[in-house]
């Protein structure tokens, strides 16, 4: 039957020779580098372009959150707490490019009346700055038989800041004048005579001879006729004067007065002055106003506020994610590994916890704990209380999958303890799910935190801190006049959620070994 082997059955011993007698046979080392699970996942992740882009966007947002707050000018951000006049700088439009480019340049499209248009023109002359960067359209409307002209213009929201009337002490007044001389910037504008321009009382922008409504009465040449105060004492020693000022050294007759002096010599003089808000800003805070995201309804810089809010959101989300990971992994591991009664009881506990609506949890924690430990720890507790359940069930599932496999049995036979089997042998297998899960917790937490602070259930808004949600809710109130206040926080959240979703998808696919080779 086995004839084919007959030939080889009786080979004499001498015919055999050892192969490679001079060479020890060992396992040959691979020439290529071994590819571990994580490295392989990383490789496959990089192949997914959308996820990589999303990852880069997340990094940029993270960078923004970390370094953004440092970009604010300290003099300005510190003023939030004490300086009430900061509200004068509200709603300045976002400025990235120089004014006049028409896009992101700090200007705003407005339809204004002839009256307002004239005021802007006058302000341009007085302040020597461009206010109306572009006239887009001009139309005539008729209302109640009266014709009026409406202009659609782009107005620079920085230079068109309302003229302020402020009362300074002698020391402040002197300091301001000294600064003017040093920097050659005209902050104090001549005081306006109310008898010549009555409308200046309600609108300090008006400096020319006009009627009750502020309509200009032009001089013979058709120019604005200055209505500046020319009598009284102003103790103005600065060399900075308007070009039209008839003042020449020594001769003060007919010269403009730059302040209205009040008080007496014994109690100390006070000076009521008209100031150019733009230049006043430079004097007060030491830099020219230019806010990349604009300012909000309180005059706060949106860029740094948003960065602070984002930093808080990220920090909260990462802390929650890490804590959830720990609790969830241990809980889920015990549940999944032991099964049976332990699993049953522990599942009921997490059922109960996950059944409580999140809004209820936060409110209860806020009411109970916020006064004792502060609002942020209370929020953190609320997030952790129900947050770990998702992670636990994910880990539990993985443990159910792996716990009866042969290699676990082998480890047990070799005498490995439960804890060692759980965390040394089974846990690494569920690493992919766990990493993906804990990354995807972050956008969830940020979304919830934003919703909560938007709804006012938690209030994190203060002069030193902010949250994206409260920025959204205050921005919504002024959406008609200043859409940029709500735009940037909304954009941030939208961008963050989209990128995290894409990133998470990529990560999930990369960590799933069964998808290996599918995409080729």
């Amino acid at each position, binding site marked *: 039957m086995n004839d084919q082997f007959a030939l080889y059955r009786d080979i004499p011993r001498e015919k055999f020779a050892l192969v490679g007698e001079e060479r020890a046979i060992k396992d040959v080392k691979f020439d290529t580098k071994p590819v571990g699970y994580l490295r392989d996942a990383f490789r496959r992740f990089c192949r997914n372009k959308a996820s990589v882009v999303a990852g880069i966007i997340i990094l940029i947002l993270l960078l923004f959150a970390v370094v953004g707050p440092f970009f604010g000018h300290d003099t300005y951000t510190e003023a939030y707490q004490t300086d009430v006049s900061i509200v004068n700088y509200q709603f300045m439009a976002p400025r990235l490019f120089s004014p006049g480019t028409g896009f992101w340049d700090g200007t705003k499209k407005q339809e204004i009346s002839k009256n307002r248009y004239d005021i802007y023109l006058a302000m341009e002359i007085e302040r020597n700055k461009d206010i109306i960067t572009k006239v887009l359209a001009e139309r005539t409307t008729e209302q109640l038989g009266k014709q009026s002209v409406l202009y659609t213009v782009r107005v620079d929201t920085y230079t068109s800041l309302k003229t302020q009337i402020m009362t300074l002490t002698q020391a402040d007044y002197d300091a301001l004048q000294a600064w003017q001389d040093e920097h050659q910037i005209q902050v104090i504008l001549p005081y306006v005579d109310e008898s010549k321009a009555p409308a200046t009382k309600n609108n300090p922008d008006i400096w020319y001879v006009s009627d009750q409504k502020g309509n200009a009465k032009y001089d013979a040449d058709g120019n604005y006729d200055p209505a500046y105060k020319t009598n009284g004492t102003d103790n103005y020693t600065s060399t900075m004067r308007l070009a039209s000022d008839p003042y020449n050294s020594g001769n003060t007759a007919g010269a403009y007065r730059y302040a209205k002096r009040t008080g007496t010599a014994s109690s100390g003089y006070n000076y009521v002055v008209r100031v150019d808000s733009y230049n006043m800003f430079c004097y007060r805070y030491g830099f020219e106003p230019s806010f990349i995201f604009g300012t909000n309804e309180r005059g706060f810089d949106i860029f740094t506020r948003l960065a602070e809010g984002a930093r808080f959101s990220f920090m909260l989300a990462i802390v929650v994610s890490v804590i959830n990971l720990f609790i969830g992994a241990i809980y889920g591991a015990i549940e999944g590994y032991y099964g049976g009664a332990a699993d049953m009881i522990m599942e009921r506990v997490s059922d109960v916890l996950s059944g409580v609506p999140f809004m209820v949890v936060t409110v209860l924690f806020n009411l109970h704990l916020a006064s004792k430990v502060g609002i942020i720890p209370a929020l953190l507790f609320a997030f952790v209380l129900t947050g770990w359940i998702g992670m636990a069930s994910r880990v539990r599932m993985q443990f159910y999958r792996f716990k009866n496999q042969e290699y676990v049995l082998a480890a047990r036979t070799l005498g490995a303890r439960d804890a060692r089997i759980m965390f040394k042998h089974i846990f690494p297998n569920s690493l992919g799910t766990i990493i993906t899960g804990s990354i995807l917790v972050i956008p969830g937490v940020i979304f919830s935190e934003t919703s909560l602070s938007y*709804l006012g259930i938690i209030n994190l808004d203060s002069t030193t801190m902010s949250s994206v949600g409260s920025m959204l809710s205050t921005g919504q109130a002024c959406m008609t006049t200043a859409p940029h206040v709500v735009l940037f926080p909304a954009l941030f*959240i939208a961008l963050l959620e989209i990128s995290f979703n894409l990133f998470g998808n990529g990560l999930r696919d990369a960590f799933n070994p069964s998808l290996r080779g599918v995409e080729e």
Partner: protein
Amino acid sequence: MYYLKYVLKRILLMLLTFSVIVVICFVLVKLLPNQPAEQFGKDMELILLRREMLGYDKPIIEQFYRFVKLAFQGNFGVGETYKTGNEVWEIFSNRLPFTIVLNVATMIFSVPLGLLLGIFAALKKNKWQDHLISTGVMIFVSVPSFIYAFLVQYILYFKLGWTGAIAEVTNGAWSWMYLKSIIPAILSMSFGTIAGFARYTRAELTEVLTSDFMLLARTKGLTRSQATVRHAMRNAMVPIFPMILGEFLSIMSGSLIIEQIFTIPGVGELYIGAINAQPAPDYNFFMLLTVFYTFLGLAAGIVIDLSYGIIDPRIRMGAK
């Protein structure tokens, strides 16, 4: 028989979970200082009288018994700091229709659209239509609904002036006037839902379309559309149908922010109002709404699980 037993078991478990949650919340709320009762008048005797009347002087267990007994009669007390003196249940039942109309309208609008988009994308898999839809879905599913709300409000109201800024509620919830005025709210809630359904439908359908029985259906002579409608759709609906039901229940709690933005006087707005009431949150409202939201959440879960059995006989018959 097997299925009935399973249903009963699930419902009992849900009721157990529900009561545990209610007990915990009740105790936690009772542990809070009840300011309004303390501040009732300045007269100590009045305070004591009122405390006795409301049963606040009794042990918590007795109070809970009282709460449950009254709750079954539809009595959740009166508003203490929010809507002071009004029956909590009455206010709640007045508010509920507004929320229901909003959510039902959103579902009616978004489910068919979502399904259609999903089916279309699945049939055109890996063509440009699919890529377009998938990209859109990715964006719309991620962005929170309140961002759309801002966008919709800004464009439809401020820029175009087509809609009002807030809901018209003078004619009640069951009126065209109300429905018309909440179109922006419905739109902003729909984007996410449509995208969610489209994504899910696409995923399910592409899986079904590649299965062997589809090949068999084509082999026995069905056209592509016949096979898709009769075999693929029915099978794809197994996980989608429960999702519709579940989404419907859980969306009730999701409209919280939308109600706030469009000032729709629904349950969500009531909840926020009760929490933010001064000088203290209104615990009676809070308790009722906690019960409401908890029940909705649990019910959504159970409805999803049970509807699998209803739509798919294989699951109903059980593992025999």
